[in-house]
């Protein structure tokens, strides 16, 4: 809840009680751990584990859920839908464009960092982080998700443009924000998992036995 306080306002959430929020946060924690492990192996760089931030937000409040990249002048992002077991959502991976220099270095890319190279880096990281995260989450609640093709939301745009481009028009969303950091590197990226409001009810049922 840190970012809501930092923003000087408290979000009203009628549906997401503290026990459920805490449960989603912990399930996410385990899932992002697996994703972080894969990323660390790929880049040979220690990943500072994000503390998942779970919220139920109005669509208009979504930019507030992007605490780690919201000050970035320019970002690039990919989006990937997922669905399964009556749960549906989208995963957004958002990179601060300032991250690409270090990202290229970590992947031993030498040469000019063109938009095409940035896109490849973005897609590679998205495939790893989104896939591992969703799988980790799904396994713990005994469901399986199928993922759509990842697609580019935009390159070198600002956060507001980005969020306008994101096609989903759900009114309220369950959001899980995972701000990844690479130790000793200027890499800022946010993985944002968005679930439809209907999914929340399914998720609540799925975790109910864990909360007994």
């Amino acid at each position, binding site marked *: 809840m*840190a970012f809501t306080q930092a923003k000087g306002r408290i979000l009203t959430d009628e549906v997401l009680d503290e026990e459920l929020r*805490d449960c989603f*946060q912990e399930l996410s924690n385990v899932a992002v*751990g697996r994703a972080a*492990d894969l990323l660390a192996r790929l880049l040979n760089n220690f990943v500072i*584990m*994000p*503390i998942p931030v779970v919220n139920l937000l109005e669509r208009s409040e979504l930019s507030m859920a992007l605490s780690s990249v919201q000050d970035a002048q320019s970002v690039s992002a990919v989006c990937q839908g997922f669905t399964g077991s009556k749960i549906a959502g989208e995963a957004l991976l958002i990179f601060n464009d300032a991250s690409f220099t270090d990202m290229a270095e970590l992947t031993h890319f030498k040469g000019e960092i063109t938009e095409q190279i940035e896109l490849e880096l973005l897609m590679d990281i998205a495939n790893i982080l989104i896939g591992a995260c969703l799988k980790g989450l799904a396994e713990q609640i005994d469901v399986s998700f199928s993922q759509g093709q990842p697609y580019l939301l935009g390159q070198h745009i600002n956060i507001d443009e980005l969020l306008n481009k994101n096609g989903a028009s759900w009114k309220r969303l369950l959001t899980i924000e995972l701000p990844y950091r690479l130790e000793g590197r200027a890499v800022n990226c946010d993985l944002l998992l968005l679930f439809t409001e209907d999914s929340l009810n399914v998720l609540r049922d799925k975790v109910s036995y*864990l*909360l007994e």
Partner: protein
Amino acid sequence: MSLPLLIVDDSSFARKQVIRALPKEWEVEVSQAGNGEEAIALIEQGKGEVVLLDLTMPVMDGFAVLEEIRAKDLPAIVIVISGDIQPEAEARVMKLGAVAFIKKPLEPAVLSQVLRDFGIYSG
């Protein structure tokens, strides 16, 4: 006398899972902390002879707790239970003095075995 056992995790759900995973016959006096600072305070009060420690926490994370325990030479046996499964994370906590590293999600059998291995629980 029961053994003072401290469970440290920012998630109360995770702390509950750890408590459920404790060996049934084990006589312990359980205390809980939601972050590293609370944990250090409780260890200093003698509430944490054995500490089951999460790593990823706000305010003060598990790595910092281990550093503090070492710096203050506090008498605590620390077992890390973490979702951060990077080999480097395990290497770092072992170097900082943890006796064992257990991956989340926690399996009760694994916890019992680790406790037996270190002679903390003999059931």
